[in-house]
C-alpha cells in the first residue's frame, strides 16, 4: 500500500531523500490549502509551505526514538519526524481516526510511535515541555535528543528564556530549533525585538552554543543539525539553531495575503525565488544527480499517495458526540481496581 516517509524509494540517496521529504510535506499542505475552502476542515490551520527544508532535514537527522515537540505551525515538523499523515489529516478533518481523536485539531498533533510528543497552540508553550523531555532522557541516561521547534515570536516569551537557562544549567540533551520567518502573525520583527539583535547571538549569551543558518538550504540545514545532534548526544549540553526562512501563505488559513499590507509582494517573491524544493531540484539536476523524469516520478508518487490519504480521511467516521465527555482523566489505581 502507501509507504511511510522512512520507506520512500529514494531513501538511500541522501539528497533525493531530502527532496522527497520536502515534497511530501509540501504536497500534503498544498492539498490542504486547495481543499480548505470546502469548509470540511473546520479548525485553524497554519501552513508551513515555503519552510519545508527545516522540517525535512531535522526530521531526517533525528532518530526515530528522539523526541520532538512543536507549536501551532507543526504539520511539517510532525510529518518530517515521520508522523502518520492520515492521522494528521483525520485530525484536521475532526475525524475519530485523528491523531488526537478529533479533540485537538491541526494545532494538536501527536504521534508517539515516532517520538512526536505533541504540538500545542499556545506560543512557546511546548518549549519547557521539550526541555522536560530532555531532563527525563538525562535521568534515563539514554542518548536520545529532545528537539523543540518554535518560531521567532516564541523567543519573546519568558518561558523560552527560563527553559534555555534550565537546559544550559543541567546540560540537557535538547536541540532548540528556531525557525525565524521574520513574522509573528502580521507583525514583522520591528515592533517585537531590538533592531540588529540576532536571536542566536542572544541565546549564546544565555550559555547555549548557538548557530544560524539558511533555512531554505536543506542540505546545509541537515549538516548543521547533524553536527549539533552529535555534540548533544556526546553529553555536551543543549544547542540552539536559528534558521531563517519564510512562510508563503497567510499566517493562518489557505490563502496568500501579501496584498493586505503587512508585507510586500516583492519580499514574498524574493523568498519564493529561493524555494527550498525548487532550489534543491535544480541544483541536483544541474549536477546530474537527478533526472527531471525522476522528479516527475517523485511528484506523481507522492501526489497519488496524498490523494489516497484524503480519500480515506474524508470517508472516515466522525467521533461519536459522546466522546466529547471521555478521557478527561486517566483512570487511577482505585478506578482500575474497580474495573
Amino acid at each position, binding site marked *: 500500500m502507501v509507504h511511510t516517509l522512512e520507506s520512500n524509494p529514494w531513501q538511500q540517496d541522501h539528497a533525493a531523500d531530502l527532496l522527497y521529504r520536502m515534497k511530501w510535506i509540501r504536497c500534503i499542505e498544498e492539498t490542504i490549502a486547495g481543499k480548505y475552502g470546502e469548509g470540511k476542515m473546520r479548525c485553524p490551520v497554519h501552513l508551513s509551505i515555503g519552510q519545508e527544508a527545516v522540517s525535512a532535514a531535522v526530521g531526517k537527522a533525528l532518530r526515530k526514538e528522539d523526541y520532538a515537540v512543536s507549536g501551532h505551525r507543526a504539520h511539517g515538523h510532525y510529518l518530517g519526524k515521520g508522523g502518520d499523515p492520515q492521522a494528521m489529516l483525520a485530525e484536521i478533518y475532526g475525524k475519530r481516526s485523528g491523531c488526537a481523536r*478529533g479533540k485537538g485539531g491541526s494545532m494538536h498533533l501527536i504521534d508517539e510511535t515516532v517520538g512526536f510528543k505533541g504540538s500545542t497552540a499556545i506560543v512557546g508553550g511546548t518549549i519547557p515541555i521539550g526541555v522536560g523531555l530532555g531532563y527525563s532522557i538525562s535521568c534515563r541516561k539514554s542518548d536520545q535528543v529532545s528537539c523543540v521547534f518554535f518560531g521567532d515570536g516564541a523567543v519573546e516569551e519568558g518561558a523560552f528564556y527560563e527553559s534555555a537557562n534550565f537546559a544550559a544549567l543541567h546540560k540537557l540533551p535538547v536541540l532548540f530549533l528556531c525557525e525565524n520567518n521574520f513574522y*509573528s502573525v502580521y507583525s514583522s520583527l520591528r515592533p517585537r525585538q531590538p533592531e540588529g539583535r540576532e536571536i542566536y547571538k542572544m541565546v549564546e549569551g544565555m550559555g547555549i552554543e548557538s548557530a544560524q543558518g539558511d533555512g531554505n538550504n536543506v542540505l546545509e540545514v541537515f549538516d548543521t543539525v547533524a553536527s549539533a545532534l552529535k555534540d548533544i548526544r556526546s553529553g555536551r549540553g543543549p544547542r540552539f539553531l536559528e534558521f531563517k526562512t519564510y512562510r508563503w501563505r497567510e499566517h493562518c488559513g489557505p490563502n496568500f495575503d501579501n496584498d493586505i499590507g503587512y508585507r510586500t509582494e516583492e519580499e514574498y517573491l524574493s523568498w519564493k525565488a529561493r524555494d527550498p524544493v525548487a532550489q534543491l531540484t535544480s541544483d541536483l539536476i544541474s549536477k546530474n544527480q537527478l533526472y527531471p523524469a525522476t522528479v516527475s516520478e517523485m511528484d506523481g508518487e507522492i501526489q497519488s499517495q496524498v490523494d489516497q490519504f484524503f480519500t480515506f480521511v474524508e470517508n472516515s467516521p466522525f467521533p461519536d*458526540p459522546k466522546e466529547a465527555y471521555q478521557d478527561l482523566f486517566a483512570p487511577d489505581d482505585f478506578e482500575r481496581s474497580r474495573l
Partner: protein
Amino acid sequence: MSRRTTFGKAINEAMTIAMRQDPRVVVCGLGTDDPKGIFGTTLKLQEEFGAKRVFDTPTSENAMTGIMIGAALDGMRPVMSHQRLDFFLLAMDQLVNNAAKWFYMFGGQRSVPVTIRLIIGRGWGQGPTHSQNLQSWFAHIPGLKVVMPTTPADAKGLLLSSIFDPNPVVFMEHRWLHEMEGDVPEGDYRVPIGPVRVANEGNDITLVSMSYMTVEAMQALPVLQAHGIHPDIIDLSTLSPLDWGGILKSVRKTGRLLVLDTSNESFSASAEIIARVTTEAFGSLKQAPRRICLPDFPSPTSPSLSAGFYRRAEDIVETVGQMMGRTLSSESIRLQRTTPHDVPGNWFKGPF
C-alpha cells in the same frame, strides 16, 4: 443620537473617543496595528494617534501586563488587548499580585487604571486552548472589576467607563458578539460599571445570563412568550462588583432562578449567583435554582464533538419548560438556525 453599529465597531469607537479626550490613554497588544486590527476593534487608531500611543507588542504577555501597570501607576490609562483570553493565563501574576492589589496593599495611595480586553473564542475548531471562559477566576479576585458586555451599546459605554475607571478592569468580549448589531449612542456615552442590564421584564422566572449566553436567551424569549412564559432576563454586563440588588429584586418577584453561564459548570460564576441568591432570598425561591453551563470538559475541536458541547436557546427553552412544569418544544428555534453550529453567523469565515 444613536445609530446601528456592531459590537466590534462600538469598541473601536469607544477607544477612539477615549484617546481623543485624554492623551494618557494608550492602546497596545499583539496585532493592534496590523491589517486585521484585532477583529476590527483597533483599526485606524494608530493612524490617528501615532505609534507611541497605539502599538504592537512582543509576545510577552506577562511582562507587557506589568509594563502597562507601571505606566498606569504613572498616570497613563492603558488598554491592552488579547486575541484570546487563554493567552492571558501567562500574566496572572501581574494581574492578581500587582494590578488587583496595588491600591489596597499600598494603603489607597495609587490606583491602577488599566483596562484589559480579553476575547473569548468559540467555534470553528478553536479547541481546548482557544475558547476558555475564566470569568469566575477574575471575579474571585478582590480588587478587579470584571465587565462582560453583550450589546454594542454596553460594549461602548462600559469600555469608556472601564478606560476612565481608576481601577483595573478585565473587559471580556465574546468573539461571537463582534459582528452583532445594535443601537449605539454617539459621543462620549458611558454606562456605569456595576448595575445589571434588564434585557427583558417578566414575572415568571429570572434568567441571569452573561455575555453571549444572553443572545441565546433572547432567542429563546419569543418561544417562551408564545407559551405564555414571561421571564426577567438579567444580563450581567458587570460581573464584579456585582449588582446583587438587581438580581435579588427579580428573584424575589419571580421565585425562580435559572443561571446561564458561558463557562464549564463546576466552580463557575453561576455557582456564586445561585449561592448568593439562596443564602439571601431562600424564602422567595419556589423551587430549586438551576443553571445551564458548559460540561466540565475542555472544548473539543472536531465539529462532531463541539456540536453538542455548547448550550443554546433550545436548552434554555427546555429547561425553563421543566422548571415551569411544562413541556416546551424548541423546534422552531432549531428550524430558524441557518448557520452551522460552529460559527456565529454567515459572516464568519474562520479561522479565528
